[in-house]
């Protein structure tokens, strides 16, 4: 099952199913494979440990 994680500052969402190909994380890359010091690619303010997991039904609104 794919999980989604949201940047608490700007709302960017990392979705394991989609990955972030431009960042070098192809579709299907699990969150655990993303480096701990990786920062939000949109705002640069928050790093991976600050991202919060979204519930299955929660909309990924920005």
């Amino acid at each position, binding site marked *: 099952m794919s999980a989604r994680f949201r940047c608490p*500052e*700007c709302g960017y969402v990392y979705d394991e199913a989609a990955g972030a*190909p*431009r*960042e*070098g*994380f192809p579709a299907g890359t699990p969150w655990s494979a993303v480096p701990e010091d990786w*920062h939000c*690619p*949109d*705002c*640069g*303010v*928050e*790093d991976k*440990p*600050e991202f919060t997991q979204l519930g299955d039904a929660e909309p990924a609104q920005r």
Partner: protein
Amino acid sequence: MLAVSTATQPVSWRDPKRFAWPLGLLIPLMPFMAWGLVEATGSGVFWFWGPMFVLGVLPVFDTLVGKDAANPPDSVVKWLEQDRYYRWCTYAYLPLQYLAMVGGAWLLTGSDLSLLEKLGLALTLGAVNGFGINTAHELGHKRASLERWLSKVALAPACYGHFFIEHNRGHHVRVATPEDPASSRLGESFYRFWPRTVAGSLRSAWHLETERLSRQDRSPWTLRNDLLNAWLMSVVLFGVLAAFFGIAVVPFLLVQAVYGFTLLESVNYMEHYGLLRQKRDDGTDRYERCQPYHSWNSDNVASNVLLYHLQRHSDHHAHPTRRYQSLRHCEDAPELPSGYPLMIVIALVPPLWRRVMDPRLLAHYDGDVTRANIHPPVRDRILRRYGAAPGSADPSASVAA
């Protein structure tokens, strides 16, 4: 005119600066104003109109017009952000910026200006493209790929294509820490800062792109590398201008690029001077989140209008994806004594800079100099001067967030 109804709630609030934002387009018109002033007065000194306007006229306007701490209410921000009028104010900078480049290249090669007058015109062009980096900065923070591409276009004339990588992924991540080449330190003069930020930012940008591409199993030597494709725009632009106006234009293009990015770096110099984020006390060796008090703020209206609220820098760093029209004044941010234009002039005279800024920085830290980001080579001297024992603990090594 702003009494519109959005999906969320009706809005009755007027943006006092709404119709002031197009004034930013005066900047790329400076080379044409220079020509007009020279024609009208007969004096070639006006080829220097760019530096004269930015460093001489603007500080006067800042003083006359004064400050404004008014913020849009939170309830209108969403509506304000989606109003495309504000976007067009920044997009319109680019055609005028390129028109200035073409007109400037024509005047530099097709007229009988003296060498000194040509130098003046090159500096005027540099000022256009230095402000162009600010326009690129606003565009480069956005998610839309069109705006990110326009950001590169606006950076090309100053040869600073790596800026939108380093600024967003390097500077914003490490701001107000000793690791950031673009955050100046207490005791560091502008002349020491300039080589450190120019070389350090370039090195960091290359490292960031190399790392990103290596995760895709790619070599950095590809046009997918955003540094290479952005720099290529500068090569093409300068090549086209040289083909039309002759190779003699190239030295002036280089001079204006250096002056343009030097203006940008002088602004970098003042935006975080001496400010320091502390490490979190959770044993992870991470810095605390960037807060409004990690950037110097300035509410001067005249320069804020021409810089798309760049001087509301505290809110920008705390919330970098906010668009310029909705940036707020922050009560808990340290305030510069003037707008950026006058502060640039002060930065050029280091003893004056120390006199103006060091007491303000110390006051911000309640007199505790060890909480500041101190330039390592002069650390002991700074500690002695500002009343802490030499060898006092380096705060970047400890202290709770």
